[in-house]
């Protein structure tokens, strides 16, 4: 097998490595939050991939750049895929209908009308260290998600999507 064939084989196996390492980490590190386990599995798997590639493939600068962006890209996609399974509302509604948790529209309305969905989100943000409760008020504990949210607002304006007015002018709502 030449360099390209070995690298192609590695890249094709990489998603499977991610999937199995995530399953393993969820079991071994329980009761760790699912999102943290997914992040760890991305780091562990990309580390394994880069180590194996360094040994098995003759890496030129161009191939090293390729390996860096392709492995980061697949890792990012995997993390978001996990996140979708955990937090996405559209996926929740689809799987809820599939599991007969939501039979009618009012089931969906009742699920999201209550504050439990919001409490779940606040707990999740606290669990991953982005929020902290101080004197009965939630404060930001890190800036990563804030920067991500601000970046998303920039993308929304580039794509001419509707403004999200409640976050920029909360006092007026």
């Amino acid at each position, binding site marked *: 097998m*030449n360099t*390209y*064939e070995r690298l*192609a084989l590695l*890249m*094709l196996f990489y998603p499977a490595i991610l*999937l199995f390492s995530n*399953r393993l980490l969820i*079991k071994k590190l329980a009761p760790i939050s*699912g999102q943290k386990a997914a992040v760890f599995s991305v780091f562990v798997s990309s580390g394994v991939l880069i180590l194996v590639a360094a040994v098995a493939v003759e890496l030129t600068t*161009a191939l090293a750049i*390729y390996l860096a962006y*392709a492995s*980061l*890209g*697949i890792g*990012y*996609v995997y993390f978001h*895929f996990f996140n*979708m399974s*955990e*937090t996405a*509302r*559209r996926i*929740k*509604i*689809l*799987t809820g*209908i*599939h599991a007969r948790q*939501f039979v*009618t*529209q009012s089931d*969906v309305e009742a*699920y*999201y009308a209550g504050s439990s*969905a*919001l*409490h779940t989100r*606040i707990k*999740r*943000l606290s669990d991953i260290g982005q*929020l902290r409760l101080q004197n009965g*008020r*939630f404060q*930001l504990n890190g800036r990563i*998600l*804030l920067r991500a949210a601000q970046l*998303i*607002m920039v*993308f*929304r304006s580039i*794509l*001419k999507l509707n403004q*999200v007015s*409640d*976050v*920029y002018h*909360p006092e007026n*709502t």
Partner: protein
Amino acid sequence: MQITVIPLAVLLVVLAIHLLVWRLFRPKNHISLVLLLFGILPFPLIIASCFVFAHGLAESILIFVGYYALAGIYVQTYPAIQAFSPSLRVILMIGHSSHGLSMQEIESRLSKVNVNMERFEDLFRESFIKEERGMLMLLPKGKILARIFVSYRNFLGLPLGAG
């Protein structure tokens, strides 16, 4: 070198088309169009480039993997851009407040925006679900997606996500 550059070049072309289409036409079926644009449209483009540069099978696979890894970053981020998740709303609200927010304040501000039901309507508009005699039903696209995520959570040994 071509293995590194071609995926980036194809992505830039697709991003330019995406930007143009969104700014000019403001499409309604966001998700289907993003999948078509980033998933299917580049396929013949990459095949053509593999023929032009006479790449072998392994090199062609690397070009495909490289492109879809890069496109996947954008495709996976797009729903967060389009739907703007309540978690990010909460982060921005708190980030823009001077002394943080209480749970009651977060609840009252979020309750004024019917963000969850907007996502529900997206599923009807994009033909993932339908309502028949008052009952919600999955359409083929929705059924496939639901099965993928249910199987995935089962494989990880986790219950279904809370949404």
